[in-house]
């Protein structure tokens, strides 16, 4: 009872200062529940999900990918920061014309120079942007006049338009100029982004909330929502509970156990989107102490296959995700049109796995339940980021299943930054990894190809190398026809599945819960927030926080002087 009164009182307090009613079909505050703070808010540099969402909404790309995620040519794309573009006849360059009405949130016009600056910065190795390898096909960008940016490519590929626009939201040169790339991440500007998107950054209270407000003067028109707030909970549980209690409107990473709770509440809804994630237990094929040598255990393809066959992947996925994930097919996701959902897999077959281990000379002579060969026990460490409860659970399940096969696994939970560091330095035996892939299946070149194994900052952490796999992937990426692409990718996946550089685990189905008062727009598989500017909350379903006054013009606004309406 007492708490009810409190709530009512708070509501009264919050109502003070309500502005006039917004136009019909618009308005409302979206509060998103999330666990943890983003690392930083620079597009292309942030490695956190919240950071990606916020920078995506604050910044604009030259053109937006369509909901079907068609990455071939430019037909699937719609103009955003560029209102038009022209291809040179040899297709080795594209000239983008910047929308003349586009303004940065501080009032400065967006120019061709900003595009050149963005691409050059992201390609700069000192900055160390994760996307730099994805921009490899872009030789350079020139700004021929203030409204034009010309991309020059190294080679013609079916997805060069996608390469040019998808990875790089455009950043303002005048904000970042003069700051050496090595100091970007630590700069205060990394925590207060200025962009040209339909939402502008308002504030970030660390471990509290991050707030964006509608950019009412935006050249693409004001968004329907007045404001978006990320409520930064300290942990997963708090984040979910805040959503269930109505303190927030949306939670994007529901687990099976939460789904039951959500369905019990009539005011809450569940939405599934197509996923771009897959997880796996990755073997390190090279000796963690000396990369010149193969790993004492996992250099052996047959051993990797035996271990894979000893793991009941379907049961693990069911146990951890219930119906919210499918068993992963390989280094790919079902969302791609190029993925055959019936790829042949190594079967779960404990008897065969045991026979195979016996025939490889791994026998339990000592009778302690652990196989050994030449005095070396079949034992290794399975590293897993402790922050991901799904991955921790998969690790403990694998530990027990391999124990049945006479293999001793030590599960090592490490914090996420430490985990990433180990992967990068390749100092692990086996690690439960997860890739959030791009709309293009071409990412496998970096994550599983020889290219990613040998490059200094390559992300093929297990150092799996097979020229046959590489060749199939390369041909697939240059094939113009979908059917040919699909056939070639299938060949490539078949090769890697048989080589077993990893035990493919789960392909989660992103499941978000939202309050029924939200009027949603379609969700795009790679980013459910892509069309959030079209969301709104009907007037009769508003609660006090929807009408709270928007924080006054930020200091950047006043400094930038008045802006003309589009």
């Amino acid at each position, binding site marked *: 009872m007492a708490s009810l009164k409190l709530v009512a009182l708070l509501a009264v307090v919050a109502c003070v200062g309500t502005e006039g009613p917004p136009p019909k079909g618009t308005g409302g505050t979206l509060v998103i529940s999330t666990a943890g703070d983003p690392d930083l808010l620079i597009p292309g540099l942030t490695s956190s999900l919240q950071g990606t969402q916020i920078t995506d909404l604050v910044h604009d790309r030259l053109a937006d990918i369509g909901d079907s995620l068609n990455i071939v040519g430019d037909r699937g794309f719609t103009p955003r920061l560029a209102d038009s573009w022209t291809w040179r006849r040899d297709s080795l360059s594209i000239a983008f014309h910047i929308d003349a009405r586009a303004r940065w949130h501080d009032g400065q016009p967006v120019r061709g120079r900003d595009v050149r600056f963005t691409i050059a910065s992201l390609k700069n190795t000192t900055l160390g942007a994760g996307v730099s390898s994805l921009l490899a096909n872009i030789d350079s960008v020139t700004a021929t006049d203030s409204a034009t940016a010309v991309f020059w490519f190294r080679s013609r590929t079916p997805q060069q338009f996608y390469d040019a626009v998808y990875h790089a939201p455009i950043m303002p040169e005048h904000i970042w100029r003069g700051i050496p790339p090595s100091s970007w991440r630590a700069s205060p500007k990394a925590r207060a982004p200025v962009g040209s998107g339909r939402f502008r950054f308002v504030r970030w209270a660390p471990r509290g909330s991050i707030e964006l407000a509608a950019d009412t003067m935006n050249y693409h028109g004001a968004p329907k929502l007045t404001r978006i707030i990320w409520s930064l909970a300290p942990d997963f549980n708090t984040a979910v509970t805040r959503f269930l209690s109505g303190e927030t409107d949306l939670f994007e990473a529901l687990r099976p156990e939460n789904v039951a709770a959500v369905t019990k509440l009539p005011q809450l809804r569940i939405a599934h989107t197509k996923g771009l994630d897959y997880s796996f237990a990755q073997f390190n094929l090279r000796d963690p102490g000396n990369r010149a040598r193969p790993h004492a255990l996992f250099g052996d393809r047959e051993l990797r296959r035996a271990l894979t066959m000893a793991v009941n992947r379907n049961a693990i996925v069911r146990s951890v995700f219930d119906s919210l994930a499918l068993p992963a097919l390989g280094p790919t996701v079902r969302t791609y049109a190029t993925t055959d959902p019936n790829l042949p897999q190594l079967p779960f077959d404990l008897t065969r796995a045991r026979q195979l281990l016996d025939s490889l000379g791994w026998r339990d002579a000592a009778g302690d339940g652990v196989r050994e060969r030449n005095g070396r026990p079949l034992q290794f460490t399975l590293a897993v980021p402790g922050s991901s409860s799904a991955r921790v659970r998969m690790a403990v399940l694998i530990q027990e299943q391999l124990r049945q096969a006479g293999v001793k696994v030590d599960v*090592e939970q490490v914090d996420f930054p430490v985990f990433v560091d180990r992967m990068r330095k390749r100092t692990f035996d086996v690690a439960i990894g997860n890739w959030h892939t791009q709309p293009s299946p071409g990412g496998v070149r970096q994550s599983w190809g020889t290219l990613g194994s040998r490059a200094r900052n390559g992300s093929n952490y297990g150092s799996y190398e097979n020229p046959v796999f590489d060749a199939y992937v390369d041909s697939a990426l240059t094939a113009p026809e979908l059917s040919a692409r699909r056939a070639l990718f299938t060949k490539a996946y078949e090769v890697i599945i048989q080589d077993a550089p990893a035990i493919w685990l789960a392909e989660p189905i992103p499941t978000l819960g939202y309050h029924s008062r939200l009027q949603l727009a379609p969700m795009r598989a790679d980013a459910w927030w892509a069309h959030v500017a079209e969301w709104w909350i009907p007037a009769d379903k508003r609660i006090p926080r929807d009408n709270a006054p928007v924080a006054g013009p930020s200091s950047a606004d006043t400094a930038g002087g008045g802006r003309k309406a589009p």
Partner: protein
Amino acid sequence: MAISVAHPTPRQSPLGRTFARIIERRPSRLALGILTAIVLVGLLAPLIAPYDPAAQPDIVLMKDLAPSPAHPFGTDPYSRDVLSRVIYGARLSLFIGLLATVVSLTLGVAYGAVAGYAGGLVDAIMMRVLDAFLAIPRLLLLVAILAAWPRLSIGALILFLGLTGWFGLSRIVRGQVLALKHAEFVTAARALGANRRRILWRHLLPNLVSPIVVAATLGVAHVIVLEAGLSYLGIGVPQPEASWGNIIRDGSDQVATLWWMSLFPGLMMVLTVMTLNVLGESLRDAYDRSW
């Protein structure tokens, strides 16, 4: 803490005397009974536990089951039987508590005895060092150590728990030694030509038995709580081993749905610690009254 010193009665051992006093009281008799039962459960875990504590019989259909006749304490997200884990947890938690306490008793008695016996500057320095250790809350000290050494074995965990638990006892021991050094019967013994080591052995140790027993009982209780706390924070006992704190941690990201994973191991822990506290306090009373 003021400790009065007197000559022990020669025939009855101090331990036997205090035990007799404990048995006299109903709450401590009850506590002793419960504790014995818990220790037995821990010792006989392989015989008593209905299932293998690490076995995952059916990770899809048998996970997260609420308590039922087949699984009185429910199952965990890996389909493991929580009752069996709590039983094995008793074994591990008591084992860790006991061994860590042995380590700290040894250190505490040795340090206190040396300081008290040596006296003078050595004593002064040793006591200042002790003050510094006492100033750091034990949990914080352990956290600093365990965070720096990730992936510790249970043996190392026991060692560190023991290494951080002797400060209080060594001060009591030193006090006893100081008092005894000047006690009449020791002076008399020395005058009679007994050598120093003999004096220590014959007279000091019996006088120290009681405070040591009290410290041991309360020490085990404290270590059990500490170990559970550290395991709960994720720097204690590693998977798939079961300790009470560990089981609670396994359920801590779904506290609301898997309430049985926090409730039952916690109850066992409270029961154990309570009996140890009751025993420790009545031991202390018995020993205070016996002078």
